[in-house]
């Protein structure tokens, strides 16, 4: 089971892989829409993250993600 910090680090690495940029400080409270990713990039980042975690998120859960904390909660729910 990944901790929130580990999931955030994997997310950071996924953004680096897709967009080439290093994110500044991000926490569970960070809004995903504030990270400067367009909708296509966001789905690409999700795809990379799914690969790293070896899991596939249901589309309807992705539609509800607003903050990084929503993502870590989803990952932990999927792994449970």
């Amino acid at each position, binding site marked *: 089971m990944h901790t929130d910090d580990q999931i955030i680090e994997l997310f950071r690495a996924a953004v680096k892989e897709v967009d080439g940029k290093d994110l500044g400080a991000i926490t569970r409270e960070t809004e995903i829409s504030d990270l400067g990713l367009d909708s*296509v*990039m966001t*789905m*690409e980042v*999700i*795809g*990379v993250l*799914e690969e790293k975690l070896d899991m596939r998120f249901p*589309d309807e859960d*992705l539609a509800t993600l607003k903050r990084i904390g929503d993502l870590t909660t989803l990952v932990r729910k999927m792994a449970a």
Partner: protein
Amino acid sequence: MGSTQKDVQVSYDVSNDFFRLWLDERMNYTCGVFEGTDNLEEAQVKKLNIIHDFAHLSPDKRVLDIGCGWGANIEFMALDKGVKDVHGVTLSPAQFEEIKRRNIPGVTAHCGNFFDYEPAEKFDALTSICMIEHVCSPEEARNGKAVELYRNYFKRAHAITKKGAWFGLQSILRNFVPRSQKDIRDIGWVTYAIFPGGITPRMEEIVQAVNPYWEIMEVKTRREDYGKTCWHWRDRLRKNEALIKDKWGTQVFDDYDRYLSACVTGFEKHYQSLAQWSLRRID
């Protein structure tokens, strides 16, 4: 609101002769059923038979085909199955011209919007093969309007049928959002450039929307069949590359090659699927 007539003309009015080059001889522009065959012509007839059976048709029935395209299904029902009272409605003027050209005995067709179509008499049965994709636009789906719009479609279908009616429906399904940039962009491009104004429904949206008008009696998904259908279409398109480029230009060939390739990928990777539905009217 979905696709307007202007939108539909982008999708279907390139040229009847263009589509004739790469569709089957009846001009079905929908998924065939490759059960026991690798032949596109046979696969399309198998599909038409399934929809015929799902609508519980017999020669004495009065039937409407909603979104009848170039007339493949109405011609099949009238000539192959002997249904005596067959009607079709299409929003595409080019498709309507092709139906008139075929001059099929026992068939009438109307060019206009299904939602405005007022039949002289109610129907015993309905068929609709991949028209529901034009009922809701991507913007409307994003705004949460999809179920309401599909329900309005099923309500209208209910209003123009008699008690005891059956409905043979076929629809593409939107399944899984692509994760790769190329696939996202290709699927998005097909949605906006080839089929403007429309979007494929999700299965759960249809399951919700049929209520309280129609009961789902049978459903069969055919994702792999549609992938194979698109492969055949692209194969025929490519075999006619020189002629298509000469008559309609390089851009038309390139666009349709990209679109059909995106569809082959889309069905292979579960982005899209297809369902055939047998619905019984709730009286």
